[in-house]
Every structure is written in structure tokens, then in C-alpha cells.
């Protein structure tokens, strides 16, 4: 397998996951605005797109919420928008048509075609909710097709690596921004709880019901943070994602018979989450813990590129 194939599959995994995250964020934000009248702009901070959004805002005339949704959905200047991410994932896939299955390619290509058709349609009559719903559903189908049909070889491991690294990073970002939006001082303890606001934080990773199943108790900021960060059994938690990253790295190390800095870093990140306790995290400071986590995830991505000659 070529290094460029590894690179394309890695980024295909990352972009697909990014699109999925963005779709969920749009949904959660929309509900939040409807239920609590909460201001919605904070969501663009998750991908560090504040300036770009303000810039696009000054040019549009629509209501704030719909221009925000359009920024997250259609704006090609926003690299995290659904259109940008799906476009990038499809470019990666198209270059690797011969290394992915027909099922994966067709489901991704179908989503790209649908987005294109909706983009060309009149914005005034566009059903944005249906669009986001459709992206979410089809993204699940693409990942499903990958699970069910891809040969379990090196290429598959690079795809997994990209998808889980992105997902872990996304959850860390969401928790960081949302938590500190609701609790600027970073303290998990407070006299009053905004039930709707905290359930929307969970909704960003689709874990409202999961929370109930696990804790069987009222929403509590510390438990929300624990669920999103440390629960290994929650498939979108940072811990779960970095566990999967570590597993994929080990598979590759076994296949190639070599280990490097990327392997060490992946193992260390996994261990850090596996053995952390939520009260300790808050002793250190959530912002500090998550900041370090995100920096190291970025570093790991660089090391993967270096170790496998992806660049």
C-alpha cells in the first residue's frame, strides 16, 4: 500500500467524522435556541472559526440563527462546514477508488451528490432540518459500510485512525467550549442548574439517554464532563476514541514490525484518560486538562504523518 493511500484514508476518516460532528452541533444548537433562547454564536468557537463567521455575517442579511446554520452547512470558506468536509472526504475517496469498496464509495458519493443538488436549489425554500438529518443518517451509513465491507488491512487501520482521532478531538473541543460557556469559572459546582443547556451539551454527542442509563440521576456538570471525557463505554467519549486510536496504532505496529514516537504518544494519551479520575481533573482544572489533551492529539496527528511518510 502506498503512503499516499494511507494519507487519503486517514483524512477521509477525519473529514467524514468532522461532517458528522458538525451536523450534530447544528441540531443541538437549533434546539438550544428554540428552548432556552440562548445565544447560539458560541458554537463557531468549537472549531475556532469565530473570525470567519463574523466576517460572513457582515455580508449576510438573514436572521442570526439561519445564517449561522448556513455558515456551518454550506459555507465553503469554513473548512468545518458540512459541504467542505464532505467535499474533502469525497476527494480523498475518489483518489482511492481502487482501495475502498463500492459500498463505501457509493454511499459517500450519493451524499455528495445530494448535497450538491440541495446547494443548487433555492435557499429560501430549503428544508435545513431535513438536510442535517440526512447528513447524519448517511454519515452513519458510510461508516457502517466501512465496518461491514472494508478489508481489515493497513488501509482500514488508517481510516479508523483518522476517524477516531477526529472524533476524540471534536468531543474534547465541544466539552471545552460548551462547559466554559455555561461555567466560565470552570467549577462543576453551582447553585442552579440550567437543565436545558446541559442536556444540549450531551446532545452534541448524542448522549442524553446514555447519561440517564449510566447515572440514573439528575444532570450534573461533573458527571457530564466525566461521561464525555472518561467513560470508555461511551463511543464518542474522548477515552473511547483514544483507546481505538491506540488499538489501530498497535495493529499497524504489528503489521510493520516497527514502533515510533507516534506509538508512544498514542499509548500515553490512552493511559492518561484511562487512569484519570474526574475529581482530579477538576483539581487540575478542566480547561488545562482539555487544553493539554487537544495539543497532544494535534501532536499525535503530526507524528503519525512523520512516522508513516504521509507528507
Amino acid at each position, binding site marked *: *500500500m*502506498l*503512503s*499516499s*493511500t*494511507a494519507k487519503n484514508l486517514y483524512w477521509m476518516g477525519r473529514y467524514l467524522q468532522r461532517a458528522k460532528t458538525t451536523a450534530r452541533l447544528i441540531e443541538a444548537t437549533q434546539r438550544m435556541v428554540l428552548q432556552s433562547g440562548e445565544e447560539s454564536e458560541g458554537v463557531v468557537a468549537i472549531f475556532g472559526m469565530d473570525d470567519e463567521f463574523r466576517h460572513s455575517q457582515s455580508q449576510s442579511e438573514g436572521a442570526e440563527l439561519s445564517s449561522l446554520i448556513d455558515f456551518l452547512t454550506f459555507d465553503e470558506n469554513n473548512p468545518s462546514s458540512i459541504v467542505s468536509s464532505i467535499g474533502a472526504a469525497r*476527494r480523498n475517496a*475518489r*483518489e482511492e*477508488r*481502487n*482501495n475502498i469498496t*463500492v459500498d463505501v*464509495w*457509493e454511499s459517500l*458519493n*450519493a451524499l455528495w*451528490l445530494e448535497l450538491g443538488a440541495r446547494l443548487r436549489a433555492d435557499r429560501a425554500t430549503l428544508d435545513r432540518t431535513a438536510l442535517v438529518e440526512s447528513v447524519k443518517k448517511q454519515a452513519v451509513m458510510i461508516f457502517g459500510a466501512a465496518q461491514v465491507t472494508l478489508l481489515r488491512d*493497513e488501509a482500514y487501520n488508517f481510516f479508523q485512525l483518522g476517524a477516531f482521532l477526529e472524533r476524540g478531538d471534536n468531543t474534547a473541543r465541544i466539552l471545552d467550549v460548551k462547559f466554559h460557556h455555561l461555567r466560565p469559572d470552570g467549577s462543576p459546582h453551582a447553585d442552579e442548574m440550567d437543565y436545558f443547556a446541559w442536556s444540549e451539551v450531551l446532545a452534541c454527542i448524542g448522549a442524553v439517554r446514555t447519561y440517564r442509563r449510566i447515572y440514573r440521576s439528575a444532570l450534573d456538570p461533573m458527571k457530564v464532563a466525566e461521561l464525555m471525557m472518561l467513560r470508555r463505554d461511551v463511543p464518542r467519549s474522548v477515552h473511547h476514541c483514544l483507546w481505538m486510536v491506540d488499538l489501530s496504532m498497535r495493529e*499497524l505496529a504489528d503489521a*510493520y514490525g516497527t514502533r515510533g514516537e507516534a506509538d508512544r504518544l498514542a499509548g500515553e494519551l490512552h493511559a492518561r484518560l484511562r487512569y484519570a479520575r474526574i475529581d482530579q481533573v477538576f483539581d487540575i482544572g478542566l480547561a488545562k486538562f482539555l487544553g493539554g489533551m487537544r495539543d497532544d492529539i494535534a501532536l499525535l496527528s503530526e507524528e503519525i504523518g512523520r512516522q*508513516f*511518510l*504521509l507528507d
Partner: protein
Amino acid sequence: MAEAVKSFDEMRSGADGAVRAPYRGVARWLERTSPERVAATRHEVDLFYRRHGITFGAYGAVDGAETTIPFDIIPRVIAWDEWEYLHKGLVQRVRALNAFLADAYGEREICRAGVIPEAQILMNAEFVAMAQGLELPGGVHAHIAGIDLVRVGEKDFYVLEDNVRTPSGVSYVLENREVMMRLAPELFAAMRVLPVADYSEELLATLRSVSFSDDAEPNVVLLTPGHYNSAYFEHAFLADEMGIELVKGSDLFVDEGRVYMRTPRGPQRVDVIYRRIDDAFLDPLAMRPDSYLGVAGLLGAVRAGRVNIVNALGNGVADDKSTYTYVPEMIRFYLGEAPILQNVPTWRCDKPDDFKYVLEHLAELVVKEVHGSGGKGMLVGPTSAKKEIEEFASIVRARPDNYIAQPTLALSTCPTFVAQGVAPRHVDLRPFVLSGRKITIVPGGLTRVALKEGSLVVNSSQGGGTKDTWVLAPDHSAG
């Protein structure tokens, strides 16, 4: 636009206007199938092609936009004895072309014998000095040849042009068949059609057979310019079918005269490169220094016999439209045989007498650029307005050596679905001839159809479509 000349219709031109034997199954199917069913089927086809991403980026399209090539669901049918004859003629022609290429970059005996002037080779814009003296495995230069044929009568086929650089279109042969089997299984049940699916198997065998190394499992890769190329789908498709790596120039590098590909495991040696990049872009050290598509040092490795490239370097000297006129002579010279397939009579505008004739008869002729392709830069006299003809005449006068002219052939027609229903449209045929240690041709080839009424230009960039091409088995009873 009126028909310029009366054409041979492959379905209807039987004795007394009866349906010709090979088309009886198709004719019955057409009678039985309702127009609604056909419309629905055609819609299905377009969806199928788009979903599979079988697309074609026409040059000049905005942002390399992807379009699908229209596919016509009425197959083009060739009887077994017709194919047997074409097969023999194609093998003969490609053997001669290969002998010529080896000679052109070797001793040039054909020039010394006075059959072809040396200038025809040495002064040719496509001549590559670096290929001089190359000794290739099996002596093969044109491993994959696409020979464009046209039919004008019951027994009359002509070779329109030879393509021995990087002929494309074979993926459509394979995909069209897949689509047809899905759409009209009942038609296959009624007729015995020879399969084409083994093309990739034969191609891989051909590529492996021309490795310099005696490694039992030589590493073969397909080199593409990348996904902005109009034929990228085909590159990916063939690599996938053969199970070989699809590489770009940046995936390869040369070290100590050997070619390697970059992998997460480290460098891996490459033995044979099926390249879909033009000569000029192959190696920035040897050819165009501004090429980002190629591999620095690649041609040095080829010359050193460390890696073979398919098709070979400098094949353009054999397939331009002026060398074309010498192919019948090549067949006599190298093989000592009479040509089986005929050339279209051709006037070369660099010859004063021919030039004079061409200028006087522009309204009847087809005029083409010597190095042109894709149906561009050409004039079809009978279907052009007077003003167009006059404009073209002044272009030809400026550079006569750049043009050849041929009579306007009445290309055969096949029934085709168009907006008004089923109507005859002009077709050509491009069989793909594989030459390694042996020569193989998958039955049929790519049938291109001019969808505009009366049009003789079948190129996909000029509104052409494709059809599935059926060669009937020898034991097929036309019943």
C-alpha cells in the same frame, strides 16, 4: 441536416431492406419493449453511472466538472465471422506497428529500403531521441493499441486511425457490459454474446510479461496524472480490477537507477509502469522540466533496463495521421503479407499535388490535423457552411504540412434511442489490442455513436455517446 451520403445501416441493410441476421434478436426485443420501459431504463442508466462516479471530465469544462458519457442501450452487434476477419486484420496491423517502432528507434531499415523517408521519423514532433536504441522485453513498444475502425458496407471496414500512445475508453467497454446485463438480461438469454470481463486479467498478464526482471511476481503499477485528468475514472477502475497500485508521480522516486514507490513500510521496488501520462510529462529531468506529474530520473531507469514503461516512449511516431498513410507498406515490408484491413485513402497536404486536390475539393472531404485528436481542429466538408470551409482553407494554407484529408466516409449507422424514438446514428469501433509475449484482443471493443442526426463526429468531447458492443459466439444461431 440532410444525410451527406447514403450509409450502411447495420440492422436494416439486409437484402431487400430486411433485418440483418446478427440483429434479429435486437429487432425482436425492440418490437416487444414499450417506449415507457425504455425511458425508465435510460433514466436508470444515468443514475447508475452517476452513482458509480463513472464520469468524464471534458477538457475546458469549468472546474474540471464531471459529466457522464451518454450510454445508448441498444447494443451494436457483430457476427462471429465479421469479428474473425477483424481480429486477423488487427493482429496483423499491430504486429507491423510494433515492428516499425522497434525499427524506428533501432536501425531504421525501412528507411534504408526506401519505403519510408527517414525525415518522416526523425523530423516527427513525437520522435523521442532518448528512446533511440532501447531494447524492450519481447521487442514490444505498443503494448496497448486502440485501432479505430469504421464500416461502410457489408464487407467494407477501414482503419481510421491507430492509437498507440495512451488509448483510453476500455473501462466503458467493461462498464457498458455490466449495465447491459443488468438492464436487459432477457436479450442476453436470447443471444450468445462473447464475454469481455477478462480484459483486466489479460492486461495484467500482458504487463507482467514485459518486465525486465525475471521475478515471478513483478510489481506492476498504474501511473496516473491524478484525479483532475478526464480519464481518471478509467485509471482507478483498471488499477482496481487488476489489484495493482494506482500511483501518481509523487508516489514514486528513483534511487540508484531503480524505481521505488513510497509506502508506510518503506520503499518498494517497481518493475513495470502502466503509464497514462504523455511522454512530455514523464520525467522532468529528461523531458519538460516544469512537469509535476512525472518522476525525476524515470527515463534513466528505463534506459538502464531497470523498469519498463507501457506503452513505450516515443510511440507517437507511429500513430500520427501522416505516418498512418505508410502502415500498409509497413505490413508488406515487415511481415511480407498483404494488408487485411484497408486504410482510408488519404491526401497529405505536404505533397503539392495532394494539396492542390484538397483545396479544390474541400467541400467533399474531411480535413484533420496531423497530430490532432478528440475531434477538434477538423473540417467535415459536406456538413459545413461555405464560410466555415473558406475559413478552414486559409488555416490549411498557412501550414499545409500540418493537415491531411480523407474522403467523407459514409460511416455505418446503428439503431439508437434519441428524443424522437429509435433512429439510425453513425458509429465507429475501437478494439483494444494487447501485445506482450502474445497478442490478445477482447471481443468487440468500444462503439462510439454520434448522437446528433447526420453527425459523423463520435468523440465524447463533441457530443458522442457509447454502446455496448456484442460479438456473437460462433455457435450462435441467429434464428
